[in-house]
């Protein structure tokens, strides 16, 4: 059986198991989490993210776009032109050529636009995966993230603009607004909280913030698609009842700088699986 087919079977089994446990007393909830962990262990041996890494590697090396250029020969993710190793755990970071801080997806989009001639407007139209479509930047980010597997998170905080991005990100995290008065802090500001049965990491802490790195980009069991943190931020702002953040915008970069730097020092295990 092919890898994705096996993964999908495991996912279906999990969905069924979760449904059955829905009617049991509160203690049973931990069963659902335990089941999830079990299936994650199975899936991790046979990680569906690898498919997207492979696709991303092809995209990285191929001459593409109106300018028929390859990213491998043009794009500097911060470690030198074409170097993928270690780039993911060192972003968001300051890039002198554009005099600004960028997160990894933003940098990749920047390179696709600048060197390959793709249109940023087009890329921003449908930036998130659906069942029948995985946007190229998602595969590329997954490939690049794979190049940091096993490395320590080291989001730089040397350049003044990197420190500024962190400070603004910390403030965006706390902005309370909208019809339901939510901020990121509402859902991610305390240890051990849940929405329904979904665990909410306390992202303001060093250990909690690792959850904003570990397993991302992630193959999401709900929906069965590959997502990057751009999607996660977008969907949390939706739940926050805010208007929609721009794709690869300054605000998202700032949030990711804050979350990433807070997790500095933890070891990143590579693209993974998310509930």
């Amino acid at each position, binding site marked *: 059986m092919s890898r994705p087919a096996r993964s999908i079977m495991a996912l279906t089994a999990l969905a069924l198991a979760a449904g059955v446990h*829905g*009617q*049991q*007393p*509160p203690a*049973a*909830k931990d069963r659902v989490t335990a089941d999830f962990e079990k299936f994650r262990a199975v899936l991790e041996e046979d990680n569906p993210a690898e498919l997207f890494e492979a696709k991303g590697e092809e995209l990285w090396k191929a001459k593409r776009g109106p300018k028929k250029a390859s990213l491998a020969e043009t794009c500097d993710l911060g470690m030198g032109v074409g170097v993928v190793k270690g780039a993911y755990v060192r972003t968001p970071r300051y890039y002198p050529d554009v005099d600004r801080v960028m997160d990894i997806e933003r940098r990749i989009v920047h390179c696709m636009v600048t060197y390959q001639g793709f249109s940023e407007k087009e890329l921003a139209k449908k930036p998130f995966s659906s069942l029948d479509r995985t946007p190229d930047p998602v595969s590329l980010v997954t490939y690049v993230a794979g190049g940091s597997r096993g490395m320590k998170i080291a989001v730089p905080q040397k350049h003044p603009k990197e420190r*500024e991005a962190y*400070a*603004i990100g*910390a*403030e*965006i995290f*706390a*902005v*309370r*607004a*909208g*019809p*339901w*008065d*939510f*901020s990121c*802090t*509402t*859902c991610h500001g305390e240890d*051990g*909280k*849940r*929405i*329904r*049965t*979904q665990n*909410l990491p306390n992202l303001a802490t060093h250990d909690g913030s690792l959850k904003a790195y570990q397993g991302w980009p992630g193959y999401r069991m709900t929906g069965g698609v590959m997502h990057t943190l751009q999607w996660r931020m977008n969907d949390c702002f*939706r*739940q926050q*009842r*805010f*208007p*929609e*953040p*721009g794709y690869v*915008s*300054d*605000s*998202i970069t*700032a949030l990711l700088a804050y979350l990433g730097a807070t997790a500095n020092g933890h070891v990143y295990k590579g693209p993974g699986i998310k509930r």
Partner: protein
Amino acid sequence: MKSNAILSAAAAILAASAFLPVHAGDYRSEALAMMKRDFHPRGIAGIDRLDQDAVQAICNRTSDKPPEALAKILQRDQMDAIRWPSDGKYLGNSAAGEKIAQRGKGMTWKDKAGAPGGGGCYNCHQIGPKETSFGTLGPSLYQFGKIRGYGIENQKYVWGKIWNSKATNLCSNMPRFGHSGSLTEAQIRDLTALLLDPKSPVNSQ
């Protein structure tokens, strides 16, 4: 009443800025300005949702720990703006209340304007004995009436909490469901019954 609330809110902000430290390089205003540039309206979620009212601004600025005197003024304004049941009846149908508590939809850019929204109460609270998939951002409300009493005072408290949680706890993490127009008076009546009707499964089981 409304202009009164706005006036004292404005005064409160002035007062607050007088005795709260303003940080070097005010990143908070930069954050708000950046978001205004980067966000766009989608569906019912307009860009005006990024404008903070006095309660949101003070709670944001003080990390949810506003000076007590200020909190009192603002809470009173929130309390003044609560609409109490027009016919004096606080308790509706608890079974209907359960459905509203279960339903999490409403107010996101995927939701339709004016569509009947839910309270999403189970996202944050344990409530009925049957539902084991509940969140923990708020306290358990299981047996709320049985423990806290069925009297008119508690009926008023629950109605007020659902209508405007900030009237009794300025920086509560609970949304202001009546105040923000997320739930109707009839829905709030059903939810109050879910918590306070002695025959509601919340209290009888």
